[in-house]
């Protein structure tokens, strides 16, 4: 049993951290995260260059990592610098290609790894609420290819993605796990309409609709109608990534708050000398350590063959960071007092991200219920 990072990972983390500290301070982050594109193509390119995306994928497919610990490390670092950008999309689409892509389809991985192709995962719909199996978007066979029709909701960077991974129903009823298929759709395919917008926590997302979009035969990723298992695996990577991102943001929110408690004076003493606040910070510390453990458990389980054990660890992690991240956000704002409410303070943006992570790929209630339903 060993919780230390190996040398390669340590170097990657150092390089990433150094780059972000220097080139992506809070004022830059906010400018780009709340800007027209919601991210900085330059920064994204540089992240790819340093290897942040390659580290998410196995060597056999051109990456140089891809283990749970790699993913956790990259996203924890992104979280601690509050990086807004399409890295999650690269991870999810990349892992989908790794898991189920034909040789031809896997050719697309290179563009993801070098950052030249922006990918997005389009699964949520206006009428679902985090459920994996509720897919109303349809794809029907049409000659050799397919016709895709429907609408996807809140697709991160869906307005700018060149490559969309879309879940669609090729059989069965809304709510059936059977009959779901996954498709690779060019962002500029005729009939793809997007309505992009900024997000409250920075970054962009979009409503994406498909109006009888014609797709070639090789748009289908994996087996027809058997996409649910793949969807679950892909989302599992997302759960790990978001959990680790949350952890990074929590640690930073905690550190900023500690610093504030040490320096801010009231009634003639640092407010960190008030015991009630000390005990709340101690509680927060305990919670953050639990969140870290949850992320470690999820990282260890991500490649676990036993589905129940794997998915339980993933849902446990997302539930834990959902609950703890929200607590950390609310408590660290409160402990800052008025200043914690201001746009100027980096913490406020960490807090927003922490809460919003609970709205991606299933919130704490969703994952607690899912955990309970996952039985041997």
């Amino acid at each position: 049993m060993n919780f230390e990072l190996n040398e390669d990972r340590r170097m990657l983390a150092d390089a990433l951290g150094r780059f972000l500290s220097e080139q992506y301070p809070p004022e830059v982050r906010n400018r780009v995260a709340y800007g027209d594109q919601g991210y900085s193509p330059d920064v994204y390119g540089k992240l790819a260059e340093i290897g942040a995306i390659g580290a998410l994928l196995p060597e056999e497919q051109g990456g140089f990592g891809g283990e749970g610990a790699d993913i956790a490390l990259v996203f924890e670092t992104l979280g601690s610098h509050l990086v807004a950008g399409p890295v999650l999309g690269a991870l999810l689409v990349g892992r989908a290609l790794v898991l189920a892509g034909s040789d031809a389809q896997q050719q697309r991985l290179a563009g993801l790894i070098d950052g030249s192709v922006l990918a997005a995962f389009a699964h949520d719909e206006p009428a679902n609420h985090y459920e994996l199996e509720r897919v109303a978007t349809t794809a029907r066979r049409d000659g050799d290819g397919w016709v895709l029709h429907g609408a996807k909701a809140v697709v991160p960077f869906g307005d700018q993605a060149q490559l969309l991974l879309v879940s669609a129903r090729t059989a069965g009823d809304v709510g059936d796990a059977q009959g779901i298929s996954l498709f690779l759709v060019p962002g500029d395919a005729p009939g793809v309409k997007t309505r992009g917008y900024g997000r409250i926590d920075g970054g962009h997302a979009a409503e994406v609709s498909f109006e009888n979009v014609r797709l070639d035969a090789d748009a289908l990723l994996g087996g027809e109608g058997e996409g649910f298992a793949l969807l679950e695996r892909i989302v599992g990577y997302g759960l790990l990534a978001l959990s680790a991102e949350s952890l990074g943001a929590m640690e930073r929110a905690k550190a900023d708050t500690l610093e504030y408690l040490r320096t801010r004076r009231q009634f003639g003493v640092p407010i960190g000398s008030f015991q009630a606040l000390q005990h709340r910070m101690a509680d927060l510390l305990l919670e953050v350590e639990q969140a870290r453990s949850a992320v470690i458990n999820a990282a260890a389980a991500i490649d676990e063959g036993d589905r129940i054990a794997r998915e339980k660890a993933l849902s446990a992690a997302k539930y834990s960071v959902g609950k703890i991240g929200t607590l950390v956000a609310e408590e660290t704002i409160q402990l800052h007092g008025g200043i914690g409410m201001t746009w100027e303070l980096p913490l406020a943006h960490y807090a927003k991200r922490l809460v919003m992570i609970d709205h991606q790929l299933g919130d704490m209630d969703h994952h607690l219920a899912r955990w309970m339903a996952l039985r041997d």
Partner: protein
Amino acid sequence: MDLQFTPEEEAFRAEVRAFLQEHLPRDLAAKVKAGQRLTRFDQENWHAILNKKGWLAYHWPVQWGGTAWTPIQKFIFDDESARAGGPRLVPFGISMLGPVLIRYGSEEQKKHWLPRILDGSDWWCQGYSEPGAGSDLASLKTTAVRQGDHYVVNGQKTWTTQGQHANMMFCLARTDKAAKAQSGISFLLIDMNQPGVEVRPIRTLDGDAEVNEVFLTDVRVPLENLVGEENKGWTYAKYLLTYERTGIAGVGFSVASLEKLKLIASRVQRNGKPLAEDPQFATRMAQVEIDLENMKTTNLRVLAAVQGGGVPGAESSMLKIRGTVIRQELLSLIRRAMGPYALPYIEEAQHAGWGEPPVGPPEAATAAAAYFNYRKLSIFGGSNEIQKNIISKTILGL
């Protein structure tokens, strides 16, 4: 022990309801219910409507244009207004400065300023907080130095809510530098339309800009704008802070939020059933509703005690804490109910009159922003930690 409202109280409730039905503008109520941001006109308009009826400064004495309402009547008004979507009254003139002037102001000050609050001639803001002195007013740094028939004021105020609209500020400034802590502070009325007053917006985390910094550089304040005695401002400030506020628990706000939440939860589907039937979500909703039902009675108990001649002191701390916890929990549940649609943030959708179709459910436009914005409830107006200190000292005797 009688928990029923009296027939007189019920009749009053009907009167209030009928008035709101007739006079509260529909579009304004819709904005409030949607959680959209109000314009200055919205607020002034509603003040004017209430003033015409004589209900604007309802807790003032009748001689100054108030009502003779009992605490229960005030509660009923607040409750009905919130349910109907009435905007919160801007408190600075009506609820804050007004009572101070009535208690401590000179006759001239009362005659000059009180009517102007009622008719909207002045829009007041509060100059209490300073950078480095939030809940700790004793460390106030703004100074006022007497020069002939004026004070010259220098300093910086912050968290000045709606300062961008204000033409007047009531302000605490240090008039005796030698005095310690809270003594040596005076309570001044400052005309903001003069050189040396600069208002800079502070953007809050949700993107809103309702609070401000106010910089005061050699600002001149005529001596007649000193309220009460020089160096006694702390007494007046404390009075203002502990002034009986029937609405502090925000019951009306919570009742309206709960109704909104229930409506949303009946519409949003999870696993093919309304969210209201999801065990996890339904449990959270039930817990907060029971908490609210209990708090309504706690609030009424405090009001009944006031009506019976009791003096609410730290009880308002109790109501403040519990009230904000419940309001924040309700806003949190509304946010959660939005699922992924809590993420989009479209500035234009925070205001009424945005012509575009909504992204996601209509309530989603403001759900997350409101949740973040209202984290302030437990911070401003004396943070919940300060309130616990007060309870600890005053009620618990620790």
